[in-house]
């Protein structure tokens, strides 16, 4: 049976002593956490280990002896080390000895109660204690329902080192009965900035919580729940984005400490995402307000709206003539065309009415870009929606007309064939009609059929325009979604401290010598960037296509109104 010894590379040059760590009997492996140096009193060592065991819940015990002799192997020392095995009885007792500066150590095991006296092969695996302690293995087994046997061998090792943090707090400058060597034995590392931030964060969090509770109280007040306002809030995507960010702020400013790694990463991701968002927003704002660009923008807005209206008028004139060589029904054509032209005229007058106020409105609205780039993009999307409102209206008119026509046609087609739609049974039944019913039905059917191309063409043109606007809005929302959900902190961590996010380990075979145990170096295999984004993605109120392509095409054909983007909060119809 193979015995695996996980030895920390920081203890390679430690003086002689005894090895303490955890013995995992199911895997026949020993994880060595530190070396206790001479002189020590065995009772005190046992007491210390008992305390550590109580605090960390890791079964730390004395596993063996370590001798680092600068000159030739001393016989008396080796006997002394064997005697230690009787004091700290541990089964099996591991003895590692290093001579001088040699890389190849000799390892032996003492088993008093061994049933099979065969020679066990020993594998010596070096690991970097600090990196293994700080790293987090994915996929994480944070769920409480995970059985102990399912836990992979490596996660047991990572777990052992991570939970023994209190063992690494004593360094060599501490006055105590025990002298340890581990990765921090030269002094505990800490950063002044981090400590200061930790102290400052508590009052800052409390202030933020108070402000946020005020804000959410105002938002929830009854004043804003009346029908026109609540309808407006639900339609504007800016309000949704602001609500989303408010939620994020609430998560960050909560007083509860993060329970586990996932919550900590989520908090950190939200914080960094908010920071970058606001920074980009302020950058955008400073660019807009410099050289009065926002004034220029407001000045070009009205001419752009005018231009769009003119293009629409040209389009309608084209439709009222003979578009693409198709012959339209003159009367219906003129009616529809004039109706839509009048609409455009109304819209243009309305826009011109607003024109003196546009610059001021835009100036104040542009100030809200300091809340974040996502808010600015949402405002842009809402402005586009408002400016193309007439296209939306035309689409609804065209769709309703076309829909009516299609339903009328299908029902009259059934009459033409002598059938009827049975609402009770939800199927088509045969029916005997009177002669006058048949006569009128056939007439109407013919009329509707010959008027179909005209209506269909208007419907097609306005649907295409509406789809164009929807696609533009969808792209903007995609960018907003991206900024919202990208876990920037995790990505930066993966870039700079890749050992913190581990997908697994990799082993490297070091130089071997015959007769000596197999030497391996265990390194951390970091998570790939795609896996980082997938694991730590922030949830958003994302909009994704509501219908599949097939149902979308069917809806378009039948003339039903389409709302291609579904928001997470929307109820399913």
């Amino acid at each position, binding site marked *: *049976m193979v015995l695996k010894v996980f030895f920390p590379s920081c203890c390679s040059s430690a003086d002689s002593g005894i090895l303490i760590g955890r013995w995992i009997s199911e895997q026949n492996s020993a994880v060595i956490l530190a070396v206790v140096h001479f002189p020590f009193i065995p009772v005190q060592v046992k007491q210390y280990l008992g305390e550590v065991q109580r605090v960390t819940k890791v079964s730390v015990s004395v596993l063996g002896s370590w001798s680092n002799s600068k000159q030739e192997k001393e016989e008396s020392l080796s006997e002394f080390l064997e005697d230690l095995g009787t004091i700290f009885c541990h089964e099996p007792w591991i003895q590692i000895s290093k001579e001088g500066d040699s890389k190849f150590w000799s390892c032996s095991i003492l088993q008093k109660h061994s049933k099979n006296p065969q020679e066990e092969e020993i594998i010596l695996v070096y690991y970097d204690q600090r990196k293994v302690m700080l790293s987090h293995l994915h996929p994480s087994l944070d769920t409480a329902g995970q059985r102990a046997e399912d836990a992979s061998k490596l996660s047991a090792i990572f777990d052992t080192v991570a939970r023994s943090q209190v063992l690494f707090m004593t360094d060599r400058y501490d006055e105590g009965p025990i002298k340890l060597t581990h990765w921090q034995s030269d002094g505990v590392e800490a950063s002044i900035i981090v400590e200061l931030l930790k102290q400052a964060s508590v009052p800052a969090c409390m202030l933020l919580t108070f402000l946020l509770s005020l804000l959410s109280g105002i938002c929830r007040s009854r004043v804003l729940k009346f029908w026109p306002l609540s309808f407006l809030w639900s339609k504007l995507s800016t309000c949704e984005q602001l609500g989303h960010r408010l939620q994020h702020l609430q998560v960050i400013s909560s007083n509860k400490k993060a329970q586990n790694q996932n919550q900590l990463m989520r908090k950190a991701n939200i914080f960094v995402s908010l920071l970058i968002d606001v920074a980009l927003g302020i950058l955008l704002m400073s660019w807009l307000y410099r050289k009065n660009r926002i004034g220029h923008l407001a000045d070009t807005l009205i001419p752009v709206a005018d231009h769009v209206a003119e293009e629409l008028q040209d389009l309608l004139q084209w439709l009222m003539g003979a578009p693409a060589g198709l012959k339209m029904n003159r009367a219906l054509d003129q009616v529809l065309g004039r109706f839509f032209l009048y609409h455009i005229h109304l819209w243009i007058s309305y826009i011109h009415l607003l024109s003196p106020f546009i610059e001021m409105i835009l100036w104040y609205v542009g100030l809200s870009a300091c809340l974040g780039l996502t808010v600015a993009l949402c405002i842009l999307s809402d402005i586009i929606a408002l400016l193309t409102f007439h296209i939306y209206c035309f689409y609804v008119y065209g769709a309703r007309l076309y829909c009516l026509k299609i339903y009328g046609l299908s029902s009259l087609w059934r009459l033409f064939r002598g059938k009827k739609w049975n609402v009770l049974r939800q199927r088509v039944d045969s029916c005997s009609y009177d002669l006058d019913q048949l006569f009128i039905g056939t007439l109407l059917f013919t009329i509707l059929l010959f008027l179909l191309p005209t209506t269909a063409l208007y419907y097609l043109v306005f649907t295409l325009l509406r789809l164009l606007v929807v696609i533009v809005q969808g792209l903007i929302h995609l960018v907003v979604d991206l900024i919202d959900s990208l876990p920037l902190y995790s990505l930066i961590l993966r870039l700079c401290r890749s050992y913190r996010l581990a997908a697994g380990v990799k082993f490297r075979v070091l130089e071997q010598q015959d007769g000596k145990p197999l030497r391996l170096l265990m390194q951390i295999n970091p998570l790939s960037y795609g896996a980082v984004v997938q694991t730590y993605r922030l949830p958003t109120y994302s909009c994704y296509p509501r219908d599949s392509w097939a149902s979308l095409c069917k809806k378009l054909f039948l003339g039903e109104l389409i709302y291609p983007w579904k928001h997470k909060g929307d109820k399913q119809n």
Partner: protein
Amino acid sequence: MAEQRRFLSARGVPIALRRRQHSASCRELAVRGPRLQLRSLSAVTSAVWLAAYGLFALSENSMVLSAAIFITLIGLIIYLHFVKIDQESLLVIGSLGIQVTSSYASGKESTTFIEMAQVKDVVINEAIHMQKVIYYLCILLQDPEDPQGVSEVVPLFQSSKPRLDCLIEVYKSCQEILEQRKTVPQSNEIK
């Protein structure tokens, strides 16, 4: 101790298998493909630059030339870093696990380590690849719920695609180490 033998890949390209035994329960098997040839590199570069020069002669726009140089450089970097695999190796450590490494031409190494508890077996399978039927070596992973089931199949040596004779050598080496873990569990049950 290391030994090297030459074989042919499924496409007829010469590959080399290197076997190293580090200890009684640790073996490393590496399949090395042919290196990037200067011939093919210069052929592709000259073809791209000739095409760019032809476009330049037609359009009189010097941006075409700089774009061609840019594209060649970026394409070469992407090819060396993401596409061209020089060596694929398998490190079998009995009682720890199996490690699969692919080394790219730019020096990048992508490693996966599979623990021994998850490994059910290492087998040679047949597959239909394009118009050929090829043999490939794969690791069968254990399904945690079902002791007889296989949860995943991990194919090995996908880029070099050695032929059956090479695969048999690798298979025999792996099985020698995997068999050790079957004889060992009796000592584990004595507790």
